């Protein structure tokens, strides 16, 4: 009985410690975001931001656009086979556009971004920490949160929504290629149905809000994991994995919540 009680007590203690560790990590991450994201950009800051926009944004363009094209083509193909059974293939444009704008573009672009740019950010900052570059920067009197972290954070915040727009545009075009050019849906109905059903605020606007939220979350996770890791080779590999896993789960979970609020009438 006594042994049982102490066993339960030990479990409760462990649970409590895990809880407090989690809260502490969240607090650290929050402070980290506040200290690095809120800073007045200098001229040098703009230059560093542009540099990161290239690494984080421009270099992710290829994977995001190619994926967008294929996803648009697949939705069009799948949608056509179902719609044609009801003689409603004219609604193909509407289906492609709405599924891309509302769901697929923000979510898939964010997942690809986490894999392509997020993991690279974690590894880069982690390696800078392991080789004492961040420490030496501190000792030179330069705050690495402002110099290293802030440009990367802002590059992520800005570039993912732009990549999402690119994803949607290319996806709609991919849907057009398959639906109109290949399967023979009337071109006028593909575009006019899309025009009639897509509203700017509700569909494009909500999709962009989602994308912005994902951009903040994914970049924050990636950069924090790099900054907070244990500076060993094993630590870097674990943190990189954590970035991709946490970002993907956060994107999918938040997508459900945002969809429920935006379209589910919550």
């Amino acid at each position, binding site marked *: 009985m006594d042994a049982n009680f102490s066993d339960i007590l030990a479990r409760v203690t462990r649970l409590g410690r895990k809880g407090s560790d989690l809260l502490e990590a969240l607090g650290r991450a929050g402070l980290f975001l506040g*200290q690095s994201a809120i800073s007045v950009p200098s001229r*040098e800051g703009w230059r560093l931001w542009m540099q990161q926009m290239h690494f984080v944004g421009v270099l992710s363009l290829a994977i995001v656009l190619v994926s967008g094209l294929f996803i648009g083509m697949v939705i069009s193909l799948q949608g056509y086979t179902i719609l044609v059974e009801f003689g409603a293939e004219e609604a193909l444009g509407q289906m492609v556009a709405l599924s891309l704008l509302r769901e697929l573009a923000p979510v898939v672009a964010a997942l690809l971004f986490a894999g392509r740019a997020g993991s690279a950010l974690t590894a880069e900052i982690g390696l*800078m920490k392991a*080789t*004492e*570059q961040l*420490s*030496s*920067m*501190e*000792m*030179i*009197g*330069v*705050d690495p949160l402002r*110099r290293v972290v802030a440009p990367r954070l802002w590059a992520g915040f800005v570039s993912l929504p732009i990549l999402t727009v690119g994803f949607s545009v290319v996806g709609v075009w991919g849907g057009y290629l398959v639906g109109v050019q290949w399967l023979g849906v009337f071109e006028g109905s593909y575009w006019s149905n899309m025009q009639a059903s897509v509203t700017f605020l509700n569909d494009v606007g909500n999709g962009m809000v989602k994308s912005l939220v994902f951009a903040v979350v994914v970049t924050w996770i990636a950069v924090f994991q790099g900054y907070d890791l244990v500076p060993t080779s094993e630590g870097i590999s674990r943190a990189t994995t954590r970035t991709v896993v946490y970002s993907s789960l956060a994107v999918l979970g938040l997508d459900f919540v945002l969809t429920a609020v935006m379209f589910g009438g919550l």
Partner: protein
Amino acid sequence: MLSAHKVSAGFYMTDTAFIEIQDLHFTRGDHEIFRGVNMSIPRGRVTAIMGPSGTGKTTLLKLIGGQLTPDSGRILIDGQDVNRLSRKALFKLRQRMGMLFQSGALFSDLDVFENVAFPLRVHTNLPDAMVRDIVLLKLQAVGLRGARELMPSELSGGMARRVALARAVSLDPELILYDEPFVGQDPISMGVLVQLIKRLNQALELTSVVVSHDIKETLSIADYLYLIADGEVVAHGTPQMLDTHQDPRVEQFMHGQPDGPVPFHYPAQPFYDDILNHDATTRIG
């Protein structure tokens, strides 16, 4: 006058101290690294902090630089308590310091020239031509002016450390912290480095703190020595005072004897027991 002070107060009077460490306690995990360390590092001199590996010499430099926070005690640099400064004020204070890291810690995305120019570019508005002149002067001093276009990945460990030294002095700081500057240097660059540290100190009236366990080189440049072991200052004094110190721990370290009160081995059970009485399935006896 100076020698009178040496006799009366052990060394220089504390009012000439640039760094004052008072009752410093620091623990990492369960391991107590410092328990009540007191030090007074005189302005404009070379002070060496020596001690066996693992005594926390690098940790002490990080505490001085404000990169770690002590459990208790105070560290005053030129009268300012490092741990009570705001983040902004701490970074401002660090502009007056230079630190030479053991690994060099050069920025891997910048070449040698830009690494040395980095502090000048971020903290001054000097025109490019002047930045170039200063960088070349510093690189000339460490003998690497010809290597200015190399990337850090193309340098040997010793060269990287010399570039890092040029970077640490590029802003002409008041204080330089050297973390094991002599490790991995060939005899020629070792001699140059020793001279360089001494000359920098004399010409610019820098305060230098050298953490090292290379006794011969350190003794040749240090004005004052602190020996730390077991989380405490074991002895301090001028090189001559420590060389003839009576404490067996000091004697053992200064003369590099394997046997003495400071154990060479990490704590373990007796060797005989470990070899003969073990369970074959485990690594622990």
